[in-house]
C-alpha cells in the first residue's frame, strides 16, 4: 500500500469510528491484508503456482455491554459505515441475550509497531530463486524408482494488521512467514511409506537455502526407502523418546488446547470440545512430572506465532503456564479472564479480517532441561524413538489421545537399533505427562499454520518449541501392514 493509500485508509478509519460512536459505546477497526503464495514442485515438474490476496476490515462495537462484529472488504468510508451499521443493529438486538457484560476495560489502549524478525523480505525473493530451490530439492529425492512422489513446496505469507480503536489504540504489525515442506513417498507392492521434513516460522527469504534443501531432500528420500524395508513397530508397553517434531503435536493437543479458557468456559463445547481442566485445577493440578515447565511465549524471534499485541490490543508477554509440573495459568484473553476470574495471557486472536477473535494458542513451548540426546537414549533399556507426526486424534475433553509418527528406531540397552515403520502410541494426558523422565537441553522450533477451532471456524498459526523428551512405560504399537 502506498503512503497516500495508507493515509487515506487511516483517515476513513478514524472517521468511521467517529461515526460508529453515535450509537456505540466503543468502536474499533482491524484492517488485515495477507498475501499467500504457494509454490510446489512434484517429481521435478510444477504442481501449483498460486497466490491469494485476502484483505478487509473487521468493524467492532460495544453496545449495551456486548461486543459485536461486522466484516467488510469495502474499506471506503461508506463501506466501513455500512459495516458499522450492521454491527450495531445486530449487536443491539443480541445484547439482550448476552453471555457476559463487558466494558472497554477488555480493550485496553495499545500503541506500537511490530515487525517479525527477518533479514530479507519475502517479496524480495524472486520466483526464479524459489523455483530453482524447489526443483533442486525435488530432483534430489530421485534416488530410486520406488520413490513415486517427490514433492518440494513452499508457502510464503506476508501479513499486515493495523488496529485502531475509539479509546486511542493504534497498532501496526507486519509479519513475514514461511513454511517449506519436503515429502518423499516410496511404494512397493501394497506397501507405502512417506517421510517428510519442514521448516516453519517467521522468517524472511534468507532461509531459502538451496544446499540445505538438497541435503534434507536426500535424507528424507533415503529414510522413506528405509521405512519400506523396515519391520513394523513392535507393540507393548515401553519407554518412548519423542523428538521435537513430534513433541510439537504432543504439546499442542494435550497442553495447548485443554488450557484454553474459552474451552473451559464451554464456548467450544459444540465444536472442538470442552476440557478436562477445571477452574479449580489452576495452582494445584500436578499436570506432569517436576521436569515439566511450559511457557506461553509470543516474544520469541522466528517462532511462528510471535507478536506484540493480540487482536484486542492486549500487549503480549511471556508467561509460565506450568512450572515444575504444576498448572499455573490458562490461555485466556481479557474477556475470558473476566468471565473465569483466572489469570490468562494475550491470546485474543483471529484468523483473518472476517472472523472475531477468540482464545488461541500462540507459541507454547516446553522449556529445555539438562540432558543431551545421547543421555536420554542411554537411559532406555527397551524402547523406541519416534520422529515427525503423521497421525493425530484426541477426545473432546483432551484426555485420551492416539498419535502416530513417520519414523521410528528401536532403543535396546541404551543404544539406537533398527528402523521400524508405522510407530504409534496412545495414552491419557495427565498420566502421560507424569511419565516424563527426561528433558533434552536443546530445543527446536516447529509450528503449524493450520490449528482449527471456533464457530465460525478459524485456522490460525501456532508455534511450539521443545527439546527431545523421554517418557516411561507408554503403550506403543505398530501398523497392520
Amino acid at each position, binding site marked *: 500500500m502506498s503512503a497516500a493509500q495508507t493515509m487515506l485508509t487511516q483517515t476513513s478509519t478514524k472517521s468511521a469510528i467517529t461515526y460508529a460512536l*453515535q450509537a456505540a459505546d466503543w468502536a474499533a477497526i482491524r484492517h488485515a491484508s495477507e498475501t499467500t503464495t504457494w509454490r510446489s514442485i512434484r517429481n521435478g*515438474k*510444477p504442481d501449483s*503456482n*498460486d*497466490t*491469494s*490476496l*485476502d484483505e478487509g476490515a473487521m468493524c467492532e462495537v460495544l453496545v449495551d455491554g456486548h461486543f*459485536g*462484529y*461486522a*466484516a*467488510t472488504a*469495502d474499506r471506503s468510508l461508506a*463501506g466501513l459505515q*455500512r459495516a458499522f451499521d*450492521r*454491527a*450495531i*443493529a*445486530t*449487536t443491539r438486538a*443480541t445484547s439482550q*441475550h*448476552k*453471555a457476559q457484560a463487558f466494558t472497554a476495560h477488555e480493550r485496553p489502549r495499545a500503541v506500537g509497531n511490530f515487525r517479525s524478525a527477518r533479514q530479507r523480505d519475502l517479496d524480495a525473493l*524472486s520466483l526464479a530463486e524459489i*523455483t530453482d530451490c524447489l526443483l533442486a530439492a525435488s530432483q534430489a529425492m530421485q534416488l530410486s524408482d520406488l520413490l*513415486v512422489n517427490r514433492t518440494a513446496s513452499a508457502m510464503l505469507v506476508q501479513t499486515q494488521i493495523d488496529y485502531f480503536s475509539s479509546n486511542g489504540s493504534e497498532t501496526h504489525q507486519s509479519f513475514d512467514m514461511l513454511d517449506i515442506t519436503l515429502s518423499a*513417498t516410496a*511404494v512397493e507392492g*501394497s506397501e*507405502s511409506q*512417506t517421510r517428510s521434513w519442514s521448516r516453519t516460522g517467521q522468517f524472511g527469504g534468507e532461509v531459502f537455502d538451496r544446499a540445505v534443501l538438497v541435503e534434507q531432500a536426500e535424507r528424507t528420500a533415503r529414510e522413506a526407502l528405509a521405512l519400506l524395508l523396515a519391520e513394523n513397530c513392535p507393540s507393548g508397553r515401553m519407554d518412548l523418546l519423542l523428538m521435537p517434531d513430534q513433541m510439537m503435536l504432543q504439546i499442542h493437543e494435550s497442553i495447548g488446547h485443554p488450557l484454553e479458557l474459552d474451552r473451559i*468456559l*464451554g*464456548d467450544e*463445547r*459444540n465444536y472442538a*470440545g*470442552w476440557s478436562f481442566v477445571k477452574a479449580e485445577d489452576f495452582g494445584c493440578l500436578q499436570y506432569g512430572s517436576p521436569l515439566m515447565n511450559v511457557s506461553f511465549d509470543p516474544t520469541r524471534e522466528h517462532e511462528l506465532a510471535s507478536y506484540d499485541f493480540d487482536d484486542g490490543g492486549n500487549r503480549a508477554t511471556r508467561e509460565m503456564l506450568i512450572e515444575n509440573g504444576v498448572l499455573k495459568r490458562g490461555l485466556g484473553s481479557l474477556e475470558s479472564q473476566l468471565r473465569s476470574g483466572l489469570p490468562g495471557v494475550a491470546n485474543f486472536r483471529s484468523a483473518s479480517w472476517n472472523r472475531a477473535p477468540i482464545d488461541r494458542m500462540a507459541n507454547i513451548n516446553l522449556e529445555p532441561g539438562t540432558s543431551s540426546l545421547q543421555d536420554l537414549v542411554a537411559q532406555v533399556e527397551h524402547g523406541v524413538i519416534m520422529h515427525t507426526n503423521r*497421525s493425530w*486424534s*484426541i*477426545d473432546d475433553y483432551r*484426555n*485420551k489421545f*492416539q498419535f*502416530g509418527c513417520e519414523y521410528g528406531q528401536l532403543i535396546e540397552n541404551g543404544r539406537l537399533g533398527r528402523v521400524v515403520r*508405522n510407530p*504409534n502410541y496412545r495414552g491419557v494426558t495427565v498420566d502421560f505427562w507424569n511419565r516424563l523422565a527426561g528433558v533434552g537441553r536443546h530445543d527446536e522450533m516447529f509450528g503449524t499454520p493450520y490449528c*482449527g477451532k471456533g*464457530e*465460525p*471456524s*478459524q*485456522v490460525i498459526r501456532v508455534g511450539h518449541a521443545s527439546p527431545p523428551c523421554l517418557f516411561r512405560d507408554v503403550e506403543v504399537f505398530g*501398523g*497392520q501392514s
Partner: protein
Amino acid sequence: MSAPKMDFIADVRGLFDALSADVLGQLRAGEELTINVSAEESLFVRFNNNRVRQNTDVAQIDISLQLQADARTVSKSRTLTGSVDVDRPALTRLLEQCRDEIAVLPLDPYQVPLQNNGSSSEEFRGHLLAPQDVVSAVVAPAAGCDLAGLYAGGSIIRANCNSMGQRHWFATETFFLDYSLYNGPQAAKGCYAGSRWDDVEWAANLTRTKALLALLSRPQQSVKPGAYRTWLAPRAFSDLLGMLGWNALSASAWKQGHSPFKKLAEGEARLSPLLSIEENFSMGLTPRFNSLGEVSETRLPLIERGELKSLLVSSRTAKEYGLVANGASGREGPRAMDVPGGTLDEEGVLQALGTGLYLSNLHYLNWSDVVSARVTGMTRYACFWVEGGEIVGPISDLRWDESLYSALGDKLLALGARAEIDPATDTYHRRALGGCRTPGALIEDFTFTL
C-alpha cells in the same frame, strides 16, 4: 442508523458479469483464462448456555484467475470490494501479475486445455430470519436448556466462466443451527438446517434432542476396551464415511502412494456387498460444476455392492496418469456423497443390536495406518451401552481404532433403512456447500482401544 435493503445475490451477479467481461476482453492471443467467484453474506451467532457469546456479520467476495499461456499455468486470487470501479483496475493488475509469472515458470506438462463445458444458472431463494430476529427465535424455545452452538445463515454464491465461453452461476439462501444440549458433562447433538426458517420445525427438532438428552440421565456405564457389536447412527456413520474424502477415493492419491484404498483400487480387496456409495448431485446440496467449470454426471457410482466402480478423477490427474476424468474437483473428494439405505427399520435397530454400543456421533477421526485403511477416533455426545435391545445407560468416551476394510467389509452386518441428510456445516474461511446422505450401520466387533 439503518442499513439500506440490498440484494446481495443480484449485486454479486452484476459484479461478476461486469468484471468477467472486462478481464476476458483484455486477453491476448495465446492466452486462456478461467474465472471463479465465491461469495457469501452471512450472519454467525455463537451460543453458550443459550446466551449469545459472539455475533459476526460477514460480507465477502473472492475472485480467482487461472491463466494458461505458453504451456504454463498460474493462479491468483484476491478479495473484491464489491464496487466495479474499484475492483476493475485491481483485476487488471492481477492479470498483469499472472502474465509476469507465466514468463518465468517452467512448462506445465499436465495443463488441462480449457474447453466450453456448457453453461448453467441456478438460484435457490430462501426465507431466512432477519438478523435482528435470529436470537429470540433460537433461544425462546430453548429456555431452561444449556444450549451451545452456532447459527449461520445468509446467501452463498459460486460462479465460474472461461475464455471458451462457458458460464456457470449457483446461488442459494440457507441457514443451519448446529447445536448441542447439555446435562452437566453429558450432551446430545442436534442440527436444524434448511432454506426456510420455521418456528414449529425448530421446536420439534429441539424436542427430539431433549428426548435424547433425557436418556443420558440413566446410570453411567463403564465399558472396557474390546470388540463390541456397534450401531453407528446416521450422523456417526456419516462421520466415518467422511474419511473417504481424505484420499481414499482420490485417483491421484492412489497413483502417488497415499490412498488407503489402494487394495480396493487394484482389485485385491472388496467391501461388503451391502454397501453402495455414489455422488448424487440431484440432492441439490452443491453445484455440479467444479473450479474448471466441468460438470459432473448427476449420479456417479463410486462403490457398488462393495466393489469399486470409480475413483474420483480430476482432469489434471487424468492427463498425468492416462485416466478418464469424471468431473471431480482438484481435491478429488466426494462433494455430494449418497449411501442408499438398507433393510434395518429404525424401530428394529436396538433389537438387532442386542447387546453392544449405540453411538450417535464420532469425533476427531484420522488415519492411523493408511496402508490397511485403519482409522482411529473417539465416541462423542449421546452414546449408550445396550443390553437385550434396551438402552442401559450412557458410556464414558471411548477411543476406537478399526480398518475400513473390516468395518465396511466382513464386519458390516446391516444398514438402516432410512438415510438422513447431514448438511455441510463447515465454516473455515467461508460457509461450505454440500453434505452427504447416509443411513446408520450395524457393525460386528468394532474395536475399542482406550
